[in-house]
């Protein structure tokens, strides 16, 4: 195997504040090859966002390293683009759609002709060719998230990080956006790391699914998804293999809820209590 594009080795993140420390991520090691589409799925409050921020260079891990194309990540790398869950808070409301997509390209010091070309192509690729002069808040949630995706695509990253990008849109829009991600991935050959709490979504999208435990987080399983490469919402999701895979991941997640990286602490909690706790955490998470 060739050198992996993205390498996460022994990443640990502990938050310290007001006399107590919280270990969000215990020990994560995995790698993503060039051109792969990998999903990370885990229960709510599993430190998924913390992990993603460490990979994106937005947070310094307490221990361990993240390496992108052989270089250690110690700040946001230029070869990476991030799409956040909160589309309403990740777009600049004082800029038009076009301005939002173009700003990072200006920071890259690309000339005007090239910028215009990239902005046009990216907006076309996400199906928003005709709204470039609108403001983000004039668009629906799904369209706003498309703008955020277009901005990431125009940036021409090697790795695209997505943090539960479709958690806040309705089911119909969500299915469309999932297919959009698959098609962009095919078309651009970009490496995608997609974080989600939705099991079906992770199986439908990924070539591989990494299952996380509850916080403090470790990787419980690295599962290869052997579904055919051409996926459609209707056929893929109703295939027996899809059902098997999602069932398997579901079991793992259930296990994960009851088993933290730190086993003893969990044993004191009754199952009923755990289920309740998870619901509360889910509300906080979104």
């Amino acid at each position, binding site marked *: 195997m060739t050198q992996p594009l993205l390498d996460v080795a022994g990443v640990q993140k502990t938050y310290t504040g007001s006399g107590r420390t919280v270990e969000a991520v215990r020990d994560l090691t995995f790698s993503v090859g060039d051109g792969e589409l990998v999903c990370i799925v885990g229960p709510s409050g599993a430190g998924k966002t913390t992990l993603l*921020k460490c990979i*994106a*260079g*937005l947070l310094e891990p307490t221990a361990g390293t993240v390496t992108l194309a052989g270089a250690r990540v110690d700040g*946001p790398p*230029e070869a*990476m*683009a*991030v799409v*956040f869950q*909160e589309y309403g*808070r*990740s777009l*600049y*409301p*004082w*800029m038009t759609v076009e301005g939002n997509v173009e*700003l*990072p390209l*200006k*920071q*890259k010091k690309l000339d005007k002709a090239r910028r215009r070309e990239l902005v046009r192509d990216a907006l076309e690729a996400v199906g928003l060719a005709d709204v470039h002069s609108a*403001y983000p*808040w*004039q668009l629906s949630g799904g369209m706003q998230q498309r703008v955020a995706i277009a*901005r990431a695509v125009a*940036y021409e990253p090697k790795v695209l990080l997505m943090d539960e990008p479709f958690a806040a849109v309705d089911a119909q829009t969500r299915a469309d956006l999932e297919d959009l991600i698959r098609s962009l991935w095919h078309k651009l050959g970009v490496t995608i790391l997609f974080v989600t709490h939705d099991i079906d979504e992770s199986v439908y999208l990924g070539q591989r699914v990494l299952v996380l435990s509850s916080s403090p987080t470790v990787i419980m399983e690295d599962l290869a998804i052997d579904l055919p490469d051409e996926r459609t919402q209707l056929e893929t999701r109703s295939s027996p293999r899809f059902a098997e895979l999602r069932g398997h991941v579901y079991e793992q997640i259930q296990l994960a809820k009851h088993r933290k990286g730190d086993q003893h602490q969990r044993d004191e909690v009754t199952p009923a209590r755990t289920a309740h706790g998870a619901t509360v955490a889910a509300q906080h998470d979104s």
Partner: protein
Amino acid sequence: MNPVLRWGRTLGFALTLPVILVTLWWVWSADSTNYYAPPLQTILTTFGDVWFSERLRADVLPSVTRLAIGYTGAVVVGVGLGVLLGANRTLRRVTEPVLEFFRAIPPPALIPILFLFAGIGDTAKVIVIISGAVWPVLLNTVEGVRAVDDVLSDTSRSYGVTGAARLRHLVLPAASPQIVAGMRQALSISIILMVISEMFASTNGLGFSVIQFQRSFAIPEMWSGILLLGLLGFVLSLLFQLFERRSLRWYHGLRRSQRGEN
């Protein structure tokens, strides 16, 4: 509704009360024999004679110039310091008590001291205006800069929008609604301080003229000066509204869309 009609309605609503008030004043004062409250007609006639003359250059222009320089200075200093303090927690904690103290001093109380140190020239008057009008701009800017959204801040970092670009494309626009609110308060404070500083010690200006007229018992002239000050404040606030509507178009649109959704 037809836009012309709607515009006409808005104008009608806006003008009704002023027209009524002016009419009442006109009628009640028409045969006034009170020396200190002359008929409105006299005041208006005097208004033309007094202000559309040499005084426009000799008194109105200096006042407006002091106001413009003082106000601009207050905005520049307020936004500049506000960005610094808003971005730096330690600096904020160190300076906060001192700033609160200075803010608590009524600016007119500083006039005697400032005039002792800076003389009674234009510089002193500009300093008086800045020292009073800077606070709302400064404190609002600090709040606005502190409230920059975390997600947008992370987004900016990950796309390399840092340093000067961050200030220009993220921090200042994000804080602009608060900054503009501060600027609006600062505008009325500036006008007040312009007038008071001229009343204190001056050889020209609107505040000086009003006091001068009062002391020489030129009552209709005094009234006309007050009227002119009112009009000046009104026109400036209209201009400010135009500026606000243009510069915060995105903000009002965003607010409307958020209200629509919820």
